[in-house]
């Protein structure tokens, strides 16, 4: 079940950190960075069925079920 409510301890800090990590990267390097971030996050979650839900939610492009 996707948690739609705010759970982040520092939302503005998260956004800033993501943007900063990508600064000055080529599109290709940026894409690989995102891929590394996603893989590391997926492993933090562990349960692939949860990650599949996240993928499906993201694929809906922001619309909820």
């Amino acid at each position, binding site marked *: 079940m996707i948690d739609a409510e705010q759970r982040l301890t520092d939302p503005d800090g998260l956004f800033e950190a993501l943007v900063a990590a990508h600064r000055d990267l080529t599109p*290709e390097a940026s*894409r690989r960075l*995102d*891929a*590394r971030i*996603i893989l590391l996050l997926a*492993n933090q979650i562990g349960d692939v069925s949860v990650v599949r839900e996240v993928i499906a939610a993201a694929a809906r492009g922001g619309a909820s079920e």
Partner: protein
Amino acid sequence: MPTHAYPQFTYDGPVAPGRYGVVVAGGGLVGLTVALDLARRGVRVLLLDEDQTVSQGSRAICFAKRTLEIYDRLGLGARILAKGVVWNRGTVFFHDRAVYSFDLLPELGHCFPAFVNLQQYYAEEWLTEACRATGLVELRWRHRASGVENRADGVVLTVDTPDGVRVIAADWLLACDGARSSISEGLGLPFSGQVFHDRFLIVDVVMERDMPAERRFWFNPPFHPNGSVLLHRQPDNVWRIDFQLGPDADPETEKSPERVRARVAAMLGPDARFEIEWVSAYTFRCRRLAKFRHGRIFFLGDAAHQVSPFGARGGNGGVQDADNLGWKLHAALTGSASEALLDSYDAERIPASDENIEASTRSTEFITPKGEAARAYRDAVLELSGAYPFARGLVNSGRLSRPAVLAGSPLNTPDDAIWPAGSCAPGAVAIDAPVRLDGRDDWLLRHVDGDGFTLLLFGDTDDFPQADLARLAVRPVLVSPTGSVGALWDHAGLAAARYDAHPGTAILLRPDQHVAARWRQLDLDAIATARRRALALEI
């Protein structure tokens, strides 16, 4: 100097017209295996092959443990083990760094290793000899099945021979004529699945090299920066090198001796001495027919399903097809089962094929990522794999062939007791274990080899009081923890451990060594019912 001389089989004139019982079209690894299996069960077979020799090139070199057990049942296990290169381990490299190693058989107490590498031509030559020795296989070389008519009462087959076209009839046709099967084409049967466009180059080189026998796989190594490379050791100092070339490579250019030499020299170093024995360029598909049984025609091996080579699931999957069909066809022909049993070939081998296709497709998507996003994820996995152990589990250079677990088969009798996971559930292939018989070392699976069903009974004679097994039409094999007379002595306790068996446990095994049913206590009526279910007979 080639390391191997190809036999030339004799063309003995065209096949006689008439009606035949079982006809096998295609004398490759799978066709020869099913012919031998049937002949050893006493079934007469006509085998047609368009060539008059064995596999050109080493081709399917990795014989998995399950395949070795099947060949042991067919009398060839020791010969393959003696000649082949045994390996259990694989190492994956990214650039020049080892990122991941795996051991496919980490425990002791198995007759056969995870894999033996052997050139396909040796296996085919020995299978041919073994078929001939049965006296029941009529081998017809330079006979190509070119046309087929699938009738309710039999198959009419058009065969091209050096003496012209012959027409024969068959009760049953086993199509083992490979990925370009003229039989599936003749019947207009479509394949569904994926076609991959990356080209690969196989080079077999002969060289003296002191290196452990393991599977080595590189992603983007310095000597081949934009592709993968796979290395396997074969007998006769032959080494298989498989280079990924990408989708735009021209196969003819890439096969030229100068280019091949340059690629190999870049890999092995400027001072390496080697000879090139065989070169082949290939692409592959991961796909299958919708059904493998079409009335009186069965499709086996590449004629039924095709996979990428990563995972060694092609040849090994095909040998398991043969193992699955042989006993069923024999049972139907001899009247100990109805023809309904033959439908279970689809019920069992289609899920097995899907498992192979899925594993092989996933490996291919990793090795040859399509599109920028796929490549980014693939490269990210490899980049993380050095420092992060979790990422090593995502590195996919091929998930190697495992025996199919026929979990959903209608032939299985579901458990009526609680059993732990991994203890040989109905549908799984019987696990081997070391035993002793009359003071000599032996193996459990060697005693699961008859035409019929085997009943493993764990314990001693007193654990099975008044067991009137004679009426069951199963062959009892007593596996004893104490080594009582006439029993297999489970001296290391591994057989009992692997089956989670206690005194009184009974396991019913099919002729292909798969588990049909199991019980905590002997129940003769339940065994009789399970045996009938495994033969698709009315219960």
